[in-house]
């Protein structure tokens, strides 16, 4: 969809310009000139509208499918495949750059892919190829159709899902762990070249970043000591019972790699100035510390959690302060200034999550009385525009 590609690129520029207006980098008059240069070819709805339409279309599609199942004499796999094809056609219509980006295409594309994959699995199962072969075949099909859906319809999440399906497929042979290691290294090394490629549309570039995250996660899982000892990848293979215990050398190398891989990603992120690498590196450092805790009981859990929390708060405050104090507010290409619109709503989520342990009931509630136990409601402060 050439028109869709142009619309998505214009969307990206317009969104960036609006964020710059929100943080005061450009004035409203400049924003108006930019929006005139990149005219809106289609309306974009706020996420809440999209979510709402996604839910309603989901109910509609599945209700029709349920009704067809009840009256049809056709095999369920055939019905699913026909329905999936019909929803793919609907996606072609609703994803048009001339129509509003309103969540309908997201729902029709999602259920199209789900029905096609489920229909394929059922038809393979009925043809007596066996569950194992059917799962493998559906995973292979998922890799292809999800990647095609990402490219054709411009939904980055399908590209990420395609990468995840590819790694699940690679886990099917008994050599799955080695394949995850090799493929993970390849993805981590190659995917960054696609992040800024002009020929790719914005969702495909986003999918490349998501694929990099999937690759890094697969690489880390393949070397993590806990995942090795508990045979996480081997359990996904076609014959999970045949995997023997890892050798002592494999355990030693795995322990070293568990510590080494996150550090490599962090250093790479600092040197290449990629926030994504830093984010993933920090998460993997945390996972490596959790892995360490699983094998070495250094201190009581409460003291570790409190110390880790103090370390994080102190590090964030310290880094923020050091970045603010240097001339220009930046150091080695990093800054604590924001270049995107203020995000709201996270505050409430954090409060709700944090409040739960603090508000535990001091004692059992009176019969028939109140039972306080921490708030479960959040979302205050969320904003949106259309």
């Amino acid at each position, binding site marked *: 969809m050439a028109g869709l590609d142009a619309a998505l690129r214009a969307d990206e520029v317009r969104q960036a310009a609006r964020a710059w207006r929100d943080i005061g980098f450009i004035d409203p008059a*400049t924003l108006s000139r930019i929006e005139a240069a990149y005219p809106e070819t289609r309306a974009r709805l706020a996420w809440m509208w999209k979510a709402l339409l996604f839910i309603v279309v989901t109910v509609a599609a599945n209700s029709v499918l349920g009704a067809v199942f009840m009256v049809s004499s056709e095999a369920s796999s055939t019905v699913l495949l026909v329905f999936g094809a019909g929803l793919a056609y609907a996606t072609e219509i609703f994803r048009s750059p001339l129509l509003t980006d309103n969540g309908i295409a997201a729902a029709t594309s999602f259920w199209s892919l789900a029905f096609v994959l489920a229909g394929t699995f059922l038809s393979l199962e009925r043809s007596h190829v066996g569950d194992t072969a059917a799962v493998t075949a559906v995973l292979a099909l998922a890799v292809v159709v999800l990647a095609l859906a990402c490219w054709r319809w411009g939904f980055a999440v399908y590209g990420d899902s395609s990468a995840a399906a590819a790694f699940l497929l690679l886990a099917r042979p008994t050599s799955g762990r080695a394949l995850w290691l090799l493929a993970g290294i390849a993805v981590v090394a190659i995917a960054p070249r696609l992040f800024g490629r002009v020929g790719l549309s914005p969702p495909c570039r986003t999918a490349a970043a998501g694929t990099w995250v999937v690759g890094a996660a697969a690489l880390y899982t393949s070397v993590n000591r806990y995942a090795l000892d508990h045979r996480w990848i081997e359990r996904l293979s076609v014959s999970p019972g045949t995997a023997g215990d890892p050798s002592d050398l494999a355990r030693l190398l795995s322990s070293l790699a568990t510590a080494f891989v996150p550090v490599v990603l962090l250093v790479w992120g600092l040197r290449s100035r990629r926030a994504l690498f830093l984010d993933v590196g920090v998460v993997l450092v945390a996972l490596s510390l959790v892995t360490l805790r699983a094998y070495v009981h250094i201190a009581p859990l409460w003291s570790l959690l409190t110390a880790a929390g103090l370390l994080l708060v102190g590090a964030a405050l310290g880094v923020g302060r050091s970045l603010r104090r240097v001339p220009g507010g930046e150091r080695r290409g*990093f800054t604590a200034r924001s270049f995107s619109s203020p995000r709201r709503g996270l505050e*409430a989520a954090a409060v709700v999550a944090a409040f739960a342990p603090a508000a535990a009931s*001091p004692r059992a509630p009176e019969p028939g009385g109140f039972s306080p136990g921490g708030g479960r409601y959040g979302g205050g402060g969320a904003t949106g525009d259309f």
Partner: protein
Amino acid sequence: MNPDLVEAIGRWRRERVVEDPPAETLLRVARGELVSIELELKTLLYAGVLLIVTGVGLFLKENHDRLGPVAIASVVGAAAAACLVYAARRLPAFTWQAAASEHLGADYVLLLGVLLFGADLGYLEAQMHLFGREWPYHLLLLAVVAFVVAYRFDSRSVLSLALTSFAAWRGVSVSLTLAARGAGSATAIRWNAIFCGAVFLAGAVGSVRWRRKSHFEGVYATLGLLLVLGALLSGVFQWDRSRWAIWEIPLGMASAAVIVAAYRLRRPLDFSLGVLSAYFGLLRLLGEAIRGTTLLLVVAASSLIVVVFLVRAQRGMRNES
């Protein structure tokens, strides 16, 4: 690097749509030469606050016999006071308007201080029974303290905490899902939720009308709508098949009111909440009235009508805004 932005900014500079210095800075950002880690730092602060509060909670649970309640309460209270003092020295002076803070983490340290205060209060209540049989009042005390702190230091997150504590005090912290299963106090809890939601909605209106922290309105309104509509939906979806229908009427009226008000005020989030609750109420009604294939087809048809309504409403809101 974002090639589309690099190309666009280069063109704007040549055509003098955007002048330097912002153009130069934005170009460096688009090229990946200047990277903002603001979100990362804030996420670290959030995670740090959560870890500390969880760690303190475990500490209280595991050590109260060994150290004694006075020592533990003193340590946690001192930590809470230190956080509040740290934040108070860095956050701007009181104003009824939004107070912009240049400090990255002071709001999160403030939140941590109030959370530690809440943990300390809960611990003291559990150990010393400060309020006796009226023990839920410690939640009201937390709500009042958090409310004052939120207004003094202009913190939306602490205001969310205050409102959540208030709702917890009224007995709403038990999930409305449980209430819908016909627990003994389900109706009382449901009415409490509606009362709390109404109070929060009144707070939203008042904050805007009297221009007192009008930027808090979103927190009040969203939490209020979630409580009111959630309570009404829990009545509609309750297990008791003899009484659910009564709740359809207030749900329909409340949803309609929210939809109309949100449409006029151009508020897509609230409009969506109203439509969603009305839609779920409709599904329950259809589920009781019709059966089999007809039900599925009617649900599909009504869903398509809702889709058309939403698309048209969205267009209307855009065109009239």
